[in-house]
């Protein structure tokens, strides 16, 4: 049983890291621990629980900016934004149910550390693109800041980018500032029914290449379609979302429907069904249920036109669906003990992109690379970056790669 230390403020976070540094201890950096089982199992002596650092410290809706302590629950922030008709435009997905936990948990620090995003990634970016400023404690037990509270800033290196998606391996973040944006007045979804994967990818490319300003493009093949909410029939659905002001949504929905006619039968989802559908896409619903949870789950990011080629190379017994216009694949493998890392990695390497084994038993995560392996020069550079922040490997050592 690992000990837990729960600092009450940023100063105590620094104290904790200094103690670890001075005593050759390794810390597991965690918010609410909702993504604890994502990554390589790492040997740590103590959990640094940042959930005690909680609370929104600045919110100026008209300046589009919000600051919060790193352990602030994401749900609290989203509720506050909702009251002002605003949102985190990167549409952070919720790993909770996927990894066997509850929905609606997690902290803003965790969302940033994992560089979360959702279907709107293709239009609005990921957490990295909305992360304006940070205060953090490095593995040297030094508190540093970077960025600021304004959306346009090129003063010094963009350390925020480096910390976003670093899974707590470089620094323990204590304070976070993000850009927030207005929520769309309404939304609608155009569905093309019954397409095979290749044709669906072509349809999504046509939609993304139009001026309809599509903010979500997913293909949900036959074998998983029934898991998604809001669909008219449980058949293969290629879904295209438009969001914005009502007159604009009305116009673009019609334009998109016309553009999609040649691909297959078209159906329209109203606002309510559209919201339901995209919530279930964002939460990767087919693979979050009890029955699916035992199976290894991959998340593959590739060029949208290559998604289909990767899917074709994976065993037909796997279940999968596409987001990001074909550029994001969620793949659930058929067997509990076989992630098929060899062939998936080889295929991804041949077409470009990266694959993450987001869910697998600890033994598998210890024996298979969880994050995409890097070629030698890049691996060495990543290691040097890590050593700059955390020379003694105090923070989440080995979570991303062995020795980093």
């Amino acid at each position, binding site marked *: 049983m690992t*000990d837990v*230390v*729960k600092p009450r403020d940023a100063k105590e976070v620094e*104290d*904790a890291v200094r*103690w670890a*540094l*001075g*005593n050759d201890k390794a810390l597991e950096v965690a918010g609410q621990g909702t993504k604890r089982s994502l990554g390589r199992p790492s040997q740590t002596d103590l959990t640094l629980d940042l959930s005690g650092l909680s609370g929104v410290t600045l919110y*100026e809706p*008209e*300046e589009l900016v919000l600051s919060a302590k790193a352990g602030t629950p994401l749900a609290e922030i989203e509720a506050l934004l909702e009251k002002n008709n605003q949102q985190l435009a990167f549409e952070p997905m919720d790993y909770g149910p996927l990894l066997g936990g509850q929905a609606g948990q997690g902290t803003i620090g965790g969302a940033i550390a994992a560089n979360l995003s959702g279907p709107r*990634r293709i239009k609005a970016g990921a957490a*990295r693109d909305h992360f304006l400023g940070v205060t953090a404690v490095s593995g040297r037990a*030094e*508190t*540093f*800041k970077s960025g*600021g509270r*304004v*959306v*346009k*800033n*090129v*003063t010094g*290196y*963009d*350390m925020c*980018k*480096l910390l976003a*998606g670093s899974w707590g391996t470089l620094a323990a973040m204590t304070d976070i500032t993000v850009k927030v*944006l*207005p*929520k769309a007045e309404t939304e609608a979804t155009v569905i093309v029914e019954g397409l095979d994967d290749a044709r669906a990818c072509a349809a999504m*490319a046509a939609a993304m*290449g139009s*001026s309809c300003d599509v903010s979500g493009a997913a293909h949900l093949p036959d074998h998983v379609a029934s898991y998604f909410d809001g669909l008219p029939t449980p058949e293969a659905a290629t879904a295209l979302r438009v969001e914005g*002001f009502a*007159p604009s949504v009305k*116009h673009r929905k019609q*334009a998109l429907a016309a553009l999609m006619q040649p691909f297959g039968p078209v159906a329209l989802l109203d606002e309510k069904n559209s919201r339901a559908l995209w919530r279930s896409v964002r939460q990767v619903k087919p693979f979050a249920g009890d029955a699916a949870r035992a199976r290894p789950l991959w998340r593959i*990011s*590739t*060029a*949208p*036109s290559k998604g289909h080629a990767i899917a074709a190379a994976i065993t037909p017994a796997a279940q999968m669906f596409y987001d990001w216009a074909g*550029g994001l694949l969620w793949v659930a493998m058929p067997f509990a003990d076989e992630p098929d890392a060899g062939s998936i990695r080889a295929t991804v390497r041949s077409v*470009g*992109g*990266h694959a993450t084994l987001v869910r697998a038993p600890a033994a598998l995560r210890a024996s298979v690379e969880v994050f*995409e392996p890097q070629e030698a*020069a*890049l691996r060495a*550079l*990543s290691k040097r970056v*890590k*050593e700059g*922040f955390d020379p*003694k490997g105090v923070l989440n050592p080995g979570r*991303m790669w062995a020795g980093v």
Partner: protein
Amino acid sequence: MSVRMPEVDGAVLARRDRIVAALRTIVPGEGVIATEREMKPYETDGLTAYHQPPMVVVLPETTEQVAQVLRYCHDEGIKVVPRGAGTSLSGGALPLADGVLLGMAKFNRIRDIDFDNRVVVAEPGVTNLAVSNAVAEAGFYYAPDPSSQIACTIGGNVAENSGGVHCLKYGMTTNNVLGCEIVLITGEVLRLGGKHLDAEGYDLLGLINGSEGLLGVVTEVTVRILKKPETARAVLIGFPSSEDAGACVSAIIGAGIIPGGMEMMDKPAIHAVEEFVHAGYPLDVEALLIVEVDGPPAEADDLIERIEIIASKCHAVSCEASTSEQQRLLFWAGRKAAFPAIGRISPDYYCMDGTIPRAKLPLVLARTREMSEKYGLRCANVFHAGDGNLHPMILYDSNKPEELDRAEQFGAEILKLCVEVGGVLTGEHGVGVEKRDLMAVMFSEIDLNAQQRVKCAFDAKGLLNPGKVFPVLHSCAELGRIHISGGKLPFPDIPRF
């Protein structure tokens, strides 16, 4: 020139002939420029107050040549300054007397236009506008549009994380770049990203954007392209005070509208521009706002209507929406000519680039007026109002003794004010040499050391573009030392479970 550059390495200069000869074996023909006359065009960039001839100019044509040049310089301990089109407004490409100036102009081809994945793969010397032009026929464009877009290169845009008037809605360079090939000072060639989204590990691509040529030399860039909106309309709104104009900007955003562009000008800027361009700007207002919306006609018309209502509530004294593409372009012609218009009424001007929380604009403008009197120099302001990016232009005459010094002091005081009100030193022009010595206003030594350790991971000898960004250079050995204090648990009161 008041900024001290790194000490010149006499031993390197003494070997100049040998170095030039060695570089010629890597880049043959006209790719190595070593005469004083021919190097002249390279001795300054867009920050023309600073000049320095380089030791030698090298213009490689292939990634392999870049790698060999950098490896040679690394082995020989020679400094390297990368340069795109030389349009930096912060002196980012200012040469070093004992350094190689690595010009990337010959990397001028577009390698791939991929509509299926909506990306363009370009060499770094391709101009920003050329990327848009290459895909214009198919109705696509590249969103970031710095005002130097006709000349500035995509590689330079990556180095500076360039913005433009549309970045509130469409993001800066960093939000629109999907991949890069970079060469480290060691000659190692790395590929970061590609046509897919997000990094497989640390977001080094995000770090390269805005790193001002200190981490690596970009040899290829993959950018995202977008389909052009069906239409765009602009509305020109005049206000009796900058407070009213600022309140209008806040109200528009508060209403959930993120315009494609939202620009503000103060009275001196309006007058200078109107005399030059005759765009039809009202002259009896204190502040002028150009708000542009884009999308299908139904959306643009709807939003213009909403904006007009908001403007009248915010005490607008004039409000005119464009009814034709010609009129929209005329509205913009004024704003886009702001810099040359100022150049017309003053022998020289010094363009600043701070960002502030938007609500602080009236305060910053009032304090700037006070400073203007104190320094005896006129100042006109243009402002990317949506994102708080302020461009004060300080008017001076370089032929008058000490006016440049006064202009620089004035500028520094404005930037310190930006930081004081919660903003930052630079929104899109970069730190370069210009704002280097102001970095301590915004960052502590610990903050700067954390950044310099990132530099060490890429360039342990500190040979790439030294003298830029960081006011004090520490050796990587010094920065790498671990300071451990206390072997005891220093927080006995922290709750443990």
